[in-house]
């Protein structure tokens, strides 16, 4: 919304600069996005002139040489290119020295040999409307030399306030003026609708129109007046200039009046050509599905049953509260005008304008919710202008369906409540003054004030807290003390254990040299194909966005892996040899959950490493490439840090290398996976090298982690360590060898761990040699070789019988 200061000053005596005013408004709750300037920077050197003579230029067909009286001793010579210039006209003149809106300073110039000392202005040269073909012709009553700024607002500062959704009353200049009055103390004039020339017509319906409102919920009030003998024509210059400064185009006097009144009162109006209202009847009703209406902008709109429209005998003629229809539009031929001012349900208007993608000055005001009383205020103001500017006569009668809104609320404002909510008092007299300035009625009460809410704040101010906000914002918050509240929760605060563990897990990965990324929660549904997911795969249960910004961001990621691959591909494409990345964030699957959430979300922790397992350096020129073991080690580090017991298990995931896929199992179930990304998947991200990857449901891991570690005595009786090298058939897993050793050596084997793997000639075809550290211990003494020898034999026997294993030489 644009608020020209010059126009605003008609209602409130602004005495501070526009920038100061903007600041003051911002500090009392009305943010001002910009302060801008309309028209020339200054009105100096713009005056009224009288064209005394207009002769053909001797050397140019299209130019005239005019003698113009601009109030100086001698007429000045001005060369003018406009076809309509003629002797006897009263015109607007820019004198040499005038600064034009584009910033250039007008000088004296020779045009085809004749010196021109000034310029006769067309409207667009002052930023008013689009008229350039002809100069603007002013009223003859103006004296030559009158400053043009006295005739209309040549130059104005303009505020662009941002009106919050609760302040429908600030959709008009008078509402802003009331805020300025309260915020600055500047005197407020009586509202421009104080005098209603049609007041006598209220209470009876006008002849010639019948209106039916089928759904009063969608249309709480519908008012109309009828104007006869209307002459549609251009608006006077002052009206055009004001509309232009407010960012609106002048169309015709009738349409301009509706816009002008809306800009002042905040209440939209609509003018029908009454002769185009078929059957002389209007019906406010819900549209039928598929019903069509061509709106004023020439677009054919297809309506549905939630949309409210105004129909005449021939069907829809106006889209209620949003835009009129072209069929009943006011034209140059119009002589009878039906002026409608209604109130529409804000939520419904919002829905309609969203559904049709049609936002208008009217809809943006109605959707904030306007008061029914405002309708007749707008009628009053418009009536005065219709009579004055179009030569119209008002028919007897004011149609009014719905009437005024409910009686005003009286809300008690207690002094004590102000202190308890704000933490600082406001004097009762001060509160009273503020509320009265804002238009509230105020009566004294025992413990404070009884406040009557004006109709224009009816929906917004209903409770004591709302009144406290009003007095607090106008009183200013500068002097508010800053105090720290007591902590009476009885709790220390801080991170939960799970949150601490998730931080720990992330810290482990950072400590291992990985960089954290923050990927998009959105992804492309094509990602299912990229991940080679078969049709029935559970990861295809996508959370799908109804109204995405693009198809590439139309579903929520079902895995933490794709955003990591995106980041890896991005960095590899920019010259990185490899990268080690992790992400900690939400992963989404469709479907309600048993705890009442709308979708299955979990906190995933994923990592990928591609390229060297660690960065090469002068001392480590060719580090090994990251493979499954790299991912395995990271999983061990993370889950080890969390104190979680886990095992590796065989598994299959479509997006992992089938020979290099491992599932992470705990006593509670599967916690995640690690492995190497399937080369075909990597290729679809244009990555041609092995990628080690892992994903853990870190939220669940943190929840499963033991509460805290309990001491075991590992130092008083150190274990006896033996190394075993065992040759087993290829295909026997390391884990099964470890299990066999641990079980056969129970209860003394406290740890068994593979530290080397070898296959080759020395162990024979189809066989592999594993070397293990085996620790034997008990908690009350140090074991001797004699204690261990029988177990060692049992272990060897078990390896032989269970796994076809044999000790290596």
């Amino acid at each position, binding site marked *: 919304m644009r608020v020209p200061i010059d126009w605003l000053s008609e209602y409130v005596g602004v005495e501070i600069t526009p920038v100061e005013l903007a600041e003051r408004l911002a500090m009392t709750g009305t943010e001002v996005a910009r302060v801008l300037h309309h028209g020339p920077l200054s009105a100096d050197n713009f005056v009224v002139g009288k064209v005394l003579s207009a002769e053909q230029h001797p050397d140019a067909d299209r130019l005239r040489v005019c003698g113009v009286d601009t109030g100086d001793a001698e007429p000045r010579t001005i060369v003018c290119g406009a076809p309509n210039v003629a002797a006897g006209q009263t015109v607007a003149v820019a004198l040499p020295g005038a600064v034009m809106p584009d910033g250039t300073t007008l000088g004296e110039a020779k045009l085809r040999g004749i010196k021109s000392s000034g310029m006769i202005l067309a409207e667009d040269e002052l930023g008013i409307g689009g008229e350039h073909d002809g100069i603007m012709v002013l009223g003859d009553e103006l004296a030559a030399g009158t400053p043009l700024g006295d005739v209309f607002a040549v130059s104005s500062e303009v505020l662009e306030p941002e009106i919050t959704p609760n302040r429908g009353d600030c959709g008009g200049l008078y509402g802003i003026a009331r805020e300025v009055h309260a915020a600055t103390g500047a005197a407020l004039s009586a509202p421009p609708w104080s005098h209603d020339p049609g007041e006598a017509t209220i209470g009876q319906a006008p002849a010639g129109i019948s209106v039916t409102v089928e759904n009063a919920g969608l249309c709480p009030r519908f008012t109309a007046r009828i104007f006869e003998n209307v002459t549609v024509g251009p608006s006077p210059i002052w009206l055009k200039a004001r509309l232009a400064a407010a960012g609106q185009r002048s169309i015709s006097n009738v349409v301009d009046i509706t816009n002008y009144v809306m800009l002042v009162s905040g209440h939209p109006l609509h003018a029908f050509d009454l002769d185009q209202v078929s059957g002389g009847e209007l019906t406010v009703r819900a549209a039928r599905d598929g019903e069509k209406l061509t709106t004023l902008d020439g677009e054919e709109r297809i309506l549905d049953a939630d949309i409210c429209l105004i129909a005449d005998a021939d069907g829809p003629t106006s889209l209620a509260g949003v835009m009129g229809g072209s069929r009943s539009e006011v034209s140059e031929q119009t002589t009878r005008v039906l002026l409608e001012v209604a109130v529409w349900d804000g939520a419904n208007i919002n829905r309609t304008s969203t559904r049709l993608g049609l936002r208008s000055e009217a809809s943006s005001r109605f959707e904030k919710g306007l008061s029914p009383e405002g309708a007749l205020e707008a009628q009053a103001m418009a009536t005065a202008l219709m009579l004055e500017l179009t030569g119209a006569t008002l028919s007897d009668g004011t149609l009014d369906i719905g009437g005024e809104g409910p009686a005003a609320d009286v809300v008690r404002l207690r002094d004590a409540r102000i202190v308890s909510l704000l933490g600082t008092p406001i004097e009762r007299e001060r509160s009273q003054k503020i509320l009265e300035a804002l238009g509230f009625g105020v009566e004294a009460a025992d413990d404070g004030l009884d406040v009557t809410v004006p109709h224009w704040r009816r929906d917004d101010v209903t409770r004591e807290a709302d009144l406290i906000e009003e007095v607090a914002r106008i009183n200013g918050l500068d002097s508010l003390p800053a*105090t720290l509240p007591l902590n009476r929760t009885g709790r220390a605060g801080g991170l939960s254990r799970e949150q601490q563990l998730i931080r720990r897990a992330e810290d482990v990965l*950072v400590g291992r040299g990985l960089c954290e990324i923050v990927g998009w929660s959105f992804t492309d549904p094509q990602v299912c194909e990229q991940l080679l997911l078969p049709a029935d795969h559970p990861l295809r249960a996508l959370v799908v966005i109804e109204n995405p910004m693009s198809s590439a961001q139309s579903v929520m990621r079902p895995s933490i892996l794709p955003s990591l691959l995106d980041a890896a591909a991005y960095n590899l494409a920019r010259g990185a040899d490899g990268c080690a990345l992790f992400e900690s964030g*939400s992963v989404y699957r469709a479907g309600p959950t048993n705890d009442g959430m709308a979708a299955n979300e979990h906190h995933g922790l994923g990592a990928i490493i591609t390229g060297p397992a660690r960065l090469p350096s002068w001392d480590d020129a060719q580090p090994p490439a990251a493979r499954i073991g790299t991912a395995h080690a990271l999983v061990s580090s993370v889950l080890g840090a969390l104190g979680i017991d886990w095992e590796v298990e065989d598994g299959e995931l479509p997006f992992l290398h089938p020979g290099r896929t491992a599932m992470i199992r705990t006593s509670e179930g599967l916690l995640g996976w690690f492995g190497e990304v399937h080369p075909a998947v990597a290729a679809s991200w244009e990555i041609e090298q092995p990628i080690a990857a892992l994903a853990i449901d870190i939220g669940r891991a943190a929840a499963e982690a033991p509460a805290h570690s309990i001491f075991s005595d590992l130092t008083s009786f150190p274990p006896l360590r033996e190394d075993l090298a065992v040759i087993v058939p290829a295909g026997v897993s390391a884990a099964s060898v470890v299990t066999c050793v641990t079980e056969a050596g129970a209860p003394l084997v406290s740890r068994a761990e593979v530290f080397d793997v070898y296959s080759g000639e020395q162990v024979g075809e189809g066989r592999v040699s594993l070397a293990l550290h085996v620790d034997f211990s008990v908690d009350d003494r140090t074991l001797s070789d004699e204690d261990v020898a029988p177990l060692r034999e049992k272990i060897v026997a078990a390896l032989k019988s269970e796994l076809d294993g044999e000790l290596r030489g």
Partner: protein
Amino acid sequence: MIERVAEIQKQAEAEISAASSSAALEELRVQYLGRKAELPQLLRDVAQLPPDQRGEAGRTANEARQSLEAMIEAAAARFEADELTAALAADKVDITLPGSPIEAVGHHHLLSATRREIEDVFCGLGYSVVEGPEVELVHYNFDALNHAPAHPARGRSDTFYIEGGGEGPDQVLLRTHTSPMQIRIMEQTPPPIALIVPGRVFRRDSDATHTPQFHQIEGLLVDEGVTLADLKGTLLAFARAIFGEGRELRLRPHFFPFTEPSVEVDVSCFMCEQGSVADGGRCSLCKGTGWLEVLGSGMVDPNVFAAVSEHGYDPDSHQGFAFGLGIERIAMLKHGVPDLRFFYENDLRFLRQFG
């Protein structure tokens, strides 16, 4: 014989003193004390001497041998130390070469690092940290938070809705703020409560200053007798912890559906003095205003308490404040990041600068 021993000792001592390396020393040891050397031979010959001479000759020869052995030992130790020193001196590495591996430690993303920093400030003030669902219901995201039915934020041009969700309050959306957790927590927990809710939120906006996903931290404190002044004090403590001790706050009245009164909070700019930098120019961070807009907040609207039927959140006795801040905004201000897109590009050259 005794004279001969003295002669050998004298000559050996001279040569040992003159020896210049442990190798030369070893040669001397063999020459004078080795199995075939003269001195050990003399010692062995003592037995053939007449008995009255044996004592003195044996003692003299033995002492000479021990003395020479000690002398060689001492010299050898000296050479060994010198040679180690020399060898180490020769084995010099250019200490200005980088560490290996080059990057020993990774980095938290700036958004995570900033989130943690803010979490820790509020943990220190006694707040707990809770998280909530990102896929939410209209009820929690709008209705219970006192959003009017026509509030523009509900529009499909502003908010992402999810396919297959319910109708009305059960319609499913991507949460547009972390505020729904105000309601969820009050449903679960009786007052008093003091908590923050960090998390990812979504709005249908994408331009130079908006990304469709971003991160917020919600704060909520509810108890009897909580005031707007308490909100100011709390946010002042936060602002000083994050932006430095000298910060001041400015509260500007605003409108949010779920707080009343509502205020926008500005922190005094930490790069300038009231909008002017040292050379007198206009501060680019705060655009010369001297203030940085950091968050929105206010006193919990009574209707929000009324939307919670559990635990007796009585709007007449309970008051609270709530605030919501953007992690991206705080990170950009504090670290001078000029453009939102850096946060989601995940370029290693960006990631490695922080955290």
